[in-house]
């Protein structure tokens, strides 16, 4: 039943991210006009609860989603199985969550 749960988690995080990705691409197309600066980005995001929730849920979803995808590929293409596979994936998910969380903190609170 684990495989079913991974499948569901993969699809649910995908559904959560679909509108977030569209928003992300739209902001990129808007923000990239005339070049980027730290001040411009931080001016938009600092102290904004909306952007904190937007990017916070994005990071949580993408960490799970990417880990499940990489897990499948490591298993099918690199032959990793069992404890090794799960260990690598738990590590990957943790790295993504920590680094992503730090990035969200940096652009919204700090």
């Amino acid at each position, binding site marked *: 039943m684990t495989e079913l749960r991974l499948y569901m988690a993969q*699809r649910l995080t*995908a*559904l959560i*991210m*679909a509108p977030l*990705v*569209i928003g*992300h*691409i739209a902001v*990129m*197309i*808007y923000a*990239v*006009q005339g*070049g*980027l*600066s*730290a*001040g411009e*980005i*931080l001016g938009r995001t600092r102290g904004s609860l909306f952007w904190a929730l937007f990017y916070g849920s994005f*990071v949580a979803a*993408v960490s799970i989603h*990417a880990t499940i*995808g*990489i897990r499948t*590929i490591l298993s099918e293409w690199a032959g990793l199985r069992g404890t090794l596979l799960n260990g690598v994936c738990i590590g990957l998910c943790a*790295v*993504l969550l920590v*680094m*992503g969380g*730090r*990035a969200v*903190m*940096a*652009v919204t609170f*700090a």
Partner: protein
Amino acid sequence: MSGRAGQMAKRRIRGHALWYAHILHRVSGIGLALFLPLHFWVLSLAITDVAALDGFLAFADLPLVKLSEFGLVFLLAVHLFGGLRLMALEWLPWPAPHKTLAAGTLAISAFLSGVFFLQAI
């Protein structure tokens, strides 16, 4: 799908539309997963070193970097619409035009990343 002249029968299968859609989804996913840690690291510079972040953004203004950003937006778009295509064929009761969906995915992604590129330069 005519056979190919040549050596032994151990090459991987195979070029047909849905197989390419599958491999594009997988490769774009790997690319995005590799890019994520870099993306997070650069943004977290805002805590420690805003000047370094600005320095990086100036680096991102180089034409070659712009081109690779265009590639990243394409990967993101193609993975998004490719994923929506997958969920549609798994969960919605309109199974027939898979190939059209796959082609549409590619077209929308190319359009979006093209718009991004034109805005960026």
